[in-house]
C-alpha cells in the first residue's frame, strides 16, 4: 500500500499580539500618571566663605552697598533703603536705577572686582522679597540680553526676633 503524505497545511502561523498590546497600554498608563511637568528653574550663585574671612576692605570705594529691607507684621516688604540713607519704599525699579547710577561707566562685574551688595533683612521677611532684591541688584533684561550689574552678593548676619 502506498501511503500518501497528507498535504502540508497552508495555515499561516500568526503571533498573538493581544497580550503585548495589553502590557504596552499598562506601561503607557503608568508613565502618563507618573509624568510631572516642572517649570524650568534657574540659579543665583552666591559665594559666602567662612564668616569673618577676608577682613575689612582697605579701599573705601570697595565697601559693600548695604541694602536694608524691612518687613511688616505679615512678612511683606515694607521698606527698602540703601546705605541707611536713601529710602525707596517698595519700588525695585528705583533701587535698580540707583545701582546703575552707582556703577557708572565702570566695567562689567566680575567675581573679584566690582561692587558688592550686602543684603540686610528682617528675620520674618518672606523669601520671595529676598529673591526680588537679588534680582534687582544682579541685573536686568534688555530684550533678549541680560545686563549684569552686581555679581557679588552676601547676607548680613540674621536679625533674630
Amino acid at each position, binding site marked *: 500500500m502506498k501511503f500518501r503524505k497528507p498535504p502540508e497545511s497552508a495555515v499561516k502561523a500568526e503571533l498573538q499580539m493581544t497580550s503585548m498590546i495589553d502590557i504596552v497600554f499598562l506601561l503607557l498608563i503608568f508613565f502618563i500618571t507618573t509624568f510631572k511637568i516642572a517649570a524650568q528653574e534657574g540659579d543665583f550663585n552666591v559665594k559666602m566663605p567662612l564668616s569673618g574671612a577676608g577682613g575689612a576692605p582697605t579701599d573705601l570705594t570697595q565697601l559693600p552697598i548695604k541694602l536694608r529691607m524691612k518687613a511688616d507684621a505679615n*512678612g511683606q516688604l515694607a521698606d527698602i533703603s540703601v546705605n541707611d540713607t536713601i529710602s525707596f519704599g517698595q519700588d525695585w525699579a528705583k533701587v535698580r536705577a540707583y545701582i546703575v547710577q552707582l556703577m557708572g561707566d565702570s566695567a562689567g562685574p566680575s567675581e573679584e572686582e566690582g561692587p558688592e551688595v550686602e543684603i540686610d533683612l528682617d528675620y520674618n521677611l518672606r*523669601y520671595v522679597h529676598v529673591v526680588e532684591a537679588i534680582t534687582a541688584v544682579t*541685573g536686568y533684561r534688555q530684550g533678549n540680553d541680560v545686563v549684569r550689574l552686581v555679581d557679588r552678593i552676601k547676607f548680613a548676619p*540674621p536679625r533674630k526676633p
Partner: protein
Amino acid sequence: MRKRKEHDYRIPEPDLTPMIDMTFQLIAFFMVLMNFSQSEQNDRVTLPESELARPADAPVDFPITLHVPSDGTVVIGGITSTLEGIRPLLNNEISLLQAKNKGASDANIIIRAHRDVPGGVVQDFIRKCQDLGFEKFTLRVKEDQRY
C-alpha cells in the same frame, strides 16, 4: 446552472499596526523624560520667580540640595529635619565628599526655599552650612514665564 453565492464569514479586523507604533512612540517619549530621582524636586516647595533665572550651562559640581518648605523645616536627601538637626545630615554629605577626596568647600549647596518661608530661616540654614565649611551657595528660583 445555479451558482451559489459564497459568503465570506470572516470577521473584518482593523489593522492595529499604526496604533501599536504610536503607542511605542509614546512609551519611548515618557521613558526618556522620566525622572525617578526626588533629589531635585519637592512638592512642598513653591519657588519664587525671577526674570533673570536661567538654567545653568553646565551641571553643578558636587550638589547638595536643601529643600526648605514654608514650615521652616529642611529636607536633605529625602530626610526632613529642623535647623538643630541639620548637622548630622550635612556631616554625612561631607563624609561622602571626603570619600571622593573633596571637602565641604568644593560642594555646592543648592537652596530651594518656599517663597513664603521667612528669609531669616534661610539665613540660619546658610549660617549652619558655613559653620561646617561650605562656601558655595546657589539660590534656586523659578523661571519667570513672562520672559
